[in-house]
């Protein structure tokens, strides 16, 4: 978040004004009309990058259950990135690629595209999330303010903490069960017993 980005309000407005074309049903298998892969390709080319055909396959899917929400969020992101601020300011290619491929997939696990449109907190989270992925902070905010605000809003952070705590509990249970087993308590040979 070390670079000053656009004003937050500008992004929130842009998200609220997402055209119907970008909200159309993404193409998955033979259903849907919105070719998200084409949107991603255009987005990167407009920024001066030449995406690899193999890499673009990340945005083609036959699995609506796994990919529908993700592709919807990616489509809306390409609309946000078409904002004039992003046209006037260079974006780091690797950050952009990583965001489109990985970060948005993570976000899609904890937030629905429609929430980004209709729920003001999720809308702000979405905007701040995009800026954070691109190492940007909203104009008028310090880095610390931007981090604090995103942490307070972050669904992915909540999801991560929840996942970690579930995983930690599973691991603790596994160890407790292993130690409680008769085989473990029979122990193994030591040459002395304290």
């Amino acid at each position, binding site marked *: 978040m070390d670079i000053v980005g656009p004003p937050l309000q500008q992004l929130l407005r842009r998200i609220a004004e997402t055209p119907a074309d970008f909200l159309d049903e993404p193409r998955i298998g033979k259903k849907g009309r919105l070719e998200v892969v084409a949107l991603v390709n255009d987005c990167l080319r407009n920024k001066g990058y030449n995406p690899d055909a193999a890499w673009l396959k990340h945005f083609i899917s036959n699995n609506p259950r796994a990919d529908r929400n993700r592709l919807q969020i990616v489509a809306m992101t390409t609309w946000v990135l078409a904002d004039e601020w992003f046209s006037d300011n260079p974006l780091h290619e690797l950050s952009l690629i990583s965001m489109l491929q990985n970060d948005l997939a993570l976000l899609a696990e904890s937030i629905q595209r429609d929430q980004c449109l209709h729920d003001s907190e999720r809308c702000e989270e979405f905007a701040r999330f995009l800026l954070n992925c691109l190492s940007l902070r909203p104009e008028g905010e310090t880095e610390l303010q931007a981090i604090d605000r995103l942490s307070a809003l972050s669904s992915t952070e909540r999801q991560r903490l929840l996942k970690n705590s579930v995983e930690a509990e599973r691991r603790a249970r596994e*160890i407790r069960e292993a130690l409680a087993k008769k085989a473990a308590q029979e122990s193994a040979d030591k*040459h*002395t017993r304290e």
Partner: protein
Amino acid sequence: MNPFQDDQRYPTLSQVGASMLHFLSEHPQAPVYRNQSGNKLTKNDLEILNRFEHDLRLRAVDWDDTRKPTWLKEFVEQVYSNVPHYRSQGAPPQFHDIHTITRAELSHDITDFVPDSVNAKRMIAFSTTGTSGNPLTIPSHPRVAAMYLCFHRRALRRLGIELTQGPSHVGVVLIGFQSRCFTYVSVTPQLAECGLAKINLHRNDWHNIEDRGKYLDALNAELYTGDPLSLSELMHVPLQTKPSALISVGMMLSAGLKKQFETHFQAPVLDIYSINEAGPIGVYDSTLNGHLLLQPDLFVEIVDAHGNPVPSGERGEITLSGGFNFCLPLLRYRTGDFAAMSYTAEGPILTGLAGRQPVRYKTATQQWLNNIEITHALQHLPLAQFGLHQALDGALTLKLAPVSMTHAKACSEALEKLFGLQSIKVVKIATEDKIMQYTSDLLDAHT
């Protein structure tokens, strides 16, 4: 068909190893073996153990009061990234800013201290009740259990003793002496399947009490290990054979009893400071006047009540970092045992080792005496176990192991001399568990 074939307990058992198990368990004078254990070591484990043993022979404890161990920084980083209790605290601070932990923390939730990298499927457990009121189950691994032998060999080698390899003899007999005791037979693959037996000398475990001597003579073990109580009982067993050495662990061994053991068994006795949480830590050497540290990968600090290291030579709590139990890497773990640290050409030594928090006693002339002075006053007597308690009115009660009651008068005299004209009540220890050695009801007794 090998009747002892058991891939879980003895994954690499050969026919000759099986013969040893048969000999140990089916001998006409054998005790009742109540449990089963096993080395549980795979071929891969044995290769790792061989390398460990080889490296250990070449390594010394490489730190002193001017420099920390070379491996410590990397170890701390690994613990902070791989152990849940520490990972949740973020980046590692400076070493001395790391909070010390005690048995109470481990006892509260041991799973929080097991690294993510440890495969729970092969985990084993050692349970301890201790004397601090915090029962604890120590997560361990068959390889960790087997590594005890490597450190014992290191200690024995200092006396010029090399353990014999091969399935034609019994390597070690672990001696217990309790009404109930975990007993079993096994073989030690690191020593080419020599025999191992863990026995209980209590009459409950024998068809005929006379069998104890006959059986142990038949085994003719190279090594006996036990605590001062069980080894004291072993002295009552008439033996025609003699071991190469004895190892005493688990309780303080007085100089008087050590000398008595050595005279009786005509073999050297190693007094090893060993705890379940960390394994064999040090071996006593009378010429060094302390316990020489045995583990190159264990950093030992002596700290004050606040966890700050005390100057070399000053007494404090023994605090451990590192160790060989990869299921429970320790980081500034306060053992509850007390000593001072000094440094010799052979490595660091713990001097004046004593279990548990120091306790002060009031003499007849209202002077304070530290418990270490009690230890010194009774050091010359061959006591298997003792405890001293001071009541609110200043009255002293000395508790002695039943086997040590013959020394009651000599103990009273030694303590009366130390305390002035007080009379000391002497009672027999009723429990079979370890007791708190030094206790007091006086308000200012715990400094």
